[in-house]
């Protein structure tokens, strides 16, 4: 039985696509047949982050419209076995994502995959609603910043009222918090909302904390999910996150500041 997971946030630029790419790659690395779908119709970007932008022939909307079949549109990742990407369409017709069409594609994917990761667009418009509608679980990506936390709360409200599970009175969508771009030393200083602050406000379980890291930009420059940069802090954080999602009980790393020595504190920059 396949599990559908939406990666969502409300606010843009908080790390949804970065998280989708690394989460999907991590699940596939651990042997699960995984597909990641870009729901951002008109603003396709997952392909760039995953480094397969030149291999896109058909897209999500082509399949919904019956212009191609799934095998033609799915892109097999060249680095990670078991990982497939379904790119978004560049059409500007936002109506292209119909609920029936999305459901049909998801049902077909369920036959062949264990995890279906839906990379939601920002906002609470059609694309975002479609991405979360069929979800069994949700990764809510939040930055420790007021507008992001507020938007995450709005998205949690929508998950609780407008998902298929909510409408049909089934068990609610299982929610997980992913706190991204976290800078523990700034939180310690009182300049940034802390992990505890965000948890207290949103009230959902913490799946992982991703530290603010130059590795994220470097890996997106190269078109490699950051989880594959195993030596980087962000990569290690995503790796832990995936293990936790799969049931491992791992302590959270990267939530306390590295202690700086006296000299480093005196001379080393922020």
């Amino acid at each position, binding site marked *: 039985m396949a599990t559908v997971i939406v990666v969502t946030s409300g606010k843009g630029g908080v790390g949804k696509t970065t998280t989708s790419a690394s989460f999907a790659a991590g699940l596939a690395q651990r042997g699960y047949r995984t597909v990641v779908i870009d729901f951002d119709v008109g603003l396709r970007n997952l392909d760039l982050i995953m480094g397969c932008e030149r291999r896109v022939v058909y897209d999500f909307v082509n399949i919904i419209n019956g212009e191609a079949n799934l095998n033609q549109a799915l892109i097999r990742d060249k680095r990670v076995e078991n990982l497939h990407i379904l790119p978004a369409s560049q059409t500007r017709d936002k109506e292209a994502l119909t609920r029936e069409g999305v459901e049909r594609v998801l049902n077909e994917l369920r036959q062949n995959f264990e995890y279906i990761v839906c990379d939601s667009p920002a906002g609470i418009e059609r694309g975002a609603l479609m991405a979360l509608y069929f979800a069994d679980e949700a990764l809510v990506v939040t930055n420790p910043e007021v507008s992001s936390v507020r938007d995450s709360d709005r998205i949690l409200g929508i998950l609780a*009222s407008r998902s298929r599970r909510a409408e049909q009175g089934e068990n609610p969508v299982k929610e997980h918090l992913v706190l991204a771009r976290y800078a523990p030393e700034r939180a310690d200083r009182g300049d940034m909302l802390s992990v505890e*602050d965000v948890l207290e406000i949103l009230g959902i379980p913490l799946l992982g904390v991703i530290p603010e890291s130059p590795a994220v930009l470097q890996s997106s420059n190269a078109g490699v999910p950051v989880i594959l940069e195993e030596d980087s802090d962000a990569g290690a954080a995503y790796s832990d996150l995936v293990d936790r999602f799969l049931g491992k009980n791992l302590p959270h790393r990267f939530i306390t500041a590295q202690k700086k020595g006296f000299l480093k504190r005196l001379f080393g920059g922020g």
Partner: protein
Amino acid sequence: MGLFENFFRGSSNKSAALAKERLQIIVAHERGSGRRGSPDYLPALKKELLEVVRKYVPVDPSQIKVHLDREGGYEVLELNITLPDEEPRSRRSSESSQKPGQS
């Protein structure tokens, strides 16, 4: 960042505390009409109400709005049905009706 400032940082103002306080207020306010404030029976209630109304009047599904408000200690369930303008027979109730009720 200057040496001095660098060394003594930690005594800077705590803007995160302000952020948390502001968020707690706005989030609590916004949840009133959305998350947790909206009971999960609302979609089903809306569907059944619509079916009942449509037995008598041909209304469009988009013309029924159900909204639950919480103010102070009580809740107001607001039901808003816009009846169609054009009716073959003359009917006094052809204007839109609002029926607020307590729950």
